[in-house]
């Protein structure tokens, strides 16, 4: 993606250079039609040409316990039992592409995390210094630190494909149209239609997960139990952590003013009172 499409740049006091207007894109994940086939996991690995990960037998239909620096798209599997019987809950764990990205807010390396005007949040590993602040800033526990390169990796929303008019690899591979890609408005429309269907089918609490605490997300998820996102391992009301907001907001301003004030106070003291008299110079060569 081009410079003209940069909406936000990490650790930059200058305005982002993006002026090109793009529609906000979004990926729809309809958890109710996911069959857990893992085609999206394979497509992600293949398109991004990532080194294979050794799978872990967890006794469930899940490939690995967590995403890794080489594995950016993991179907999380959970069982849920209620009056209606046993339900398999599949959730696509990946970067949510927040409208207000906590990773970007926390990042101290200029240009290491960017957000494009279409909403995609992307890591520029060549600018990454490996501090892990993004992992602290992310409310979804997404960025993964590579011990090998000492930098951080995550889903790019296939920015390379999207920028040339293709849909993300995972969406392309999905056999049930559980994954769809388009503008955010389109995806919300599809999602809401699907929620109506689910409600008609007895899932009274079905809904769309597009958490407002992070300004909404670029990955819109349909949940049959939207009243309990934690059933899927999703945070109920994700926000940029308060400590991170304090640290990058008021504390930073206050700290900078205090440090400057300290230097100014020393200068003023020196002009007003100067060096102490008496006791000699104390130096060896007097």
């Amino acid at each position: 993606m081009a410079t003209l499409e940069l909406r936000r740049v990490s650790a930059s006091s200058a305005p982002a250079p993006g002026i090109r207007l793009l529609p906000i894109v979004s990926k729809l994940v309809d958890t109710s039609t996911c069959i857990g086939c893992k085609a999206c996991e394979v497509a992600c690995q293949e398109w991004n040409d990532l080194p294979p990960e050794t799978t872990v037998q967890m006794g469930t239909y899940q490939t690995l316990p967590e995403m890794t620096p080489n594995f950016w798209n993991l179907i999380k599997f959970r069982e849920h039992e209620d009056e209606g019987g046993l339900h398999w809950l599949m959730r696509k764990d990946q970067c949510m592409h927040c409208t207000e990205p906590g990773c970007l807010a926390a990042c101290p390396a200029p240009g290491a995390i960017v957000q494009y005007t279409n909403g995609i949040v992307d890591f520029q590993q060549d600018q990454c210094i490996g501090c892990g602040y993004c992992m602290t800033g992310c409310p979804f526990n997404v960025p993964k630190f590579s011990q090998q390169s000492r930098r951080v990796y995550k889903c790019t929303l296939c920015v390379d494909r999207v920028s040339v008019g293709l849909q993300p690899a995972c969406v392309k591979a999905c056999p049930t149209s559980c994954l769809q890609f388009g503008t955010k408005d389109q995806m919300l429309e599809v999602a809401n239609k699907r929620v109506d269907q689910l409600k008609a089918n007895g899932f009274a609490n079905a809904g769309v997960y597009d958490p407002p605490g992070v300004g909404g997300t670029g990955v819109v998820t349909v949940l049959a139990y939207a009243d309990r996102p934690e059933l899927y391992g999703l945070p109920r009301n994700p926000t940029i952590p308060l400590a991170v907001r304090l640290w990058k907001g008021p504390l930073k301003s206050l700290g900078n003013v205090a440090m400057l004030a300290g230097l100014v106070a020393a200068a003023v003291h020196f002009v007003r009172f100067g060096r102490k008299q008496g006791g000699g110079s104390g130096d060896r060569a007097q």
Partner: protein
Amino acid sequence: MNREPRIQRYGLSERLVHTVAGLSYVYLLLTGLAFWTPALFWLAAMLGGGFLSRMLHPWVGLLFTAAVIAMLAAWRRDMRTTAEDRRWRQAIGRYIRNEDSLVPGAGRFNYGQKAFFWLMVWAGLALVLSGVVMWFVDSIPPELHVVRTAATLIHAVAALATIGGFIVHVYMGVAVVPGGLDAIVHGEVSEEWARHHHPLWFAEMQSTKGSRERR
């Protein structure tokens, strides 16, 4: 040339440890400020780039911690607050205005030095504990996310506290107290200097003269 007799104020090991602490602190300060605000990221570029700064910062932090522990071992007794210190503290305004004749005499360290010392010890403890969490942030399980965020905040607050103390410490030692820097670098001061700035310590040194040899 003033040929007044000189006495030893800091032994060689004290001076070396202080030098290690000072240099490692300056490195931590400059790289830490680079991570603190984009406006100062150029400091990291100046010191070999952001990646290298991030690589070395925790290791230098351990070096600084070791130096602080050594200083704690060497100066713990000298840094205890005494009754004289409380009188000195009440007259701190006069000390600041350089009206030294109206300030109660200080021992080996005056109350300001002691306050700075304990500030560095306690803030240093907070910095090393929160720093280890930040160093191994990917080892902290997501359920304990609050530990990550708290560590980041604590690290910043503790660092700011040390910066305040550091500005005063360096300004006093270099600009306000003539011979202060020379004493901590070379170890010796004139008797006149000792009598003026640390009269209680000077008296103690005189009374134990000959029987006491500092390292």
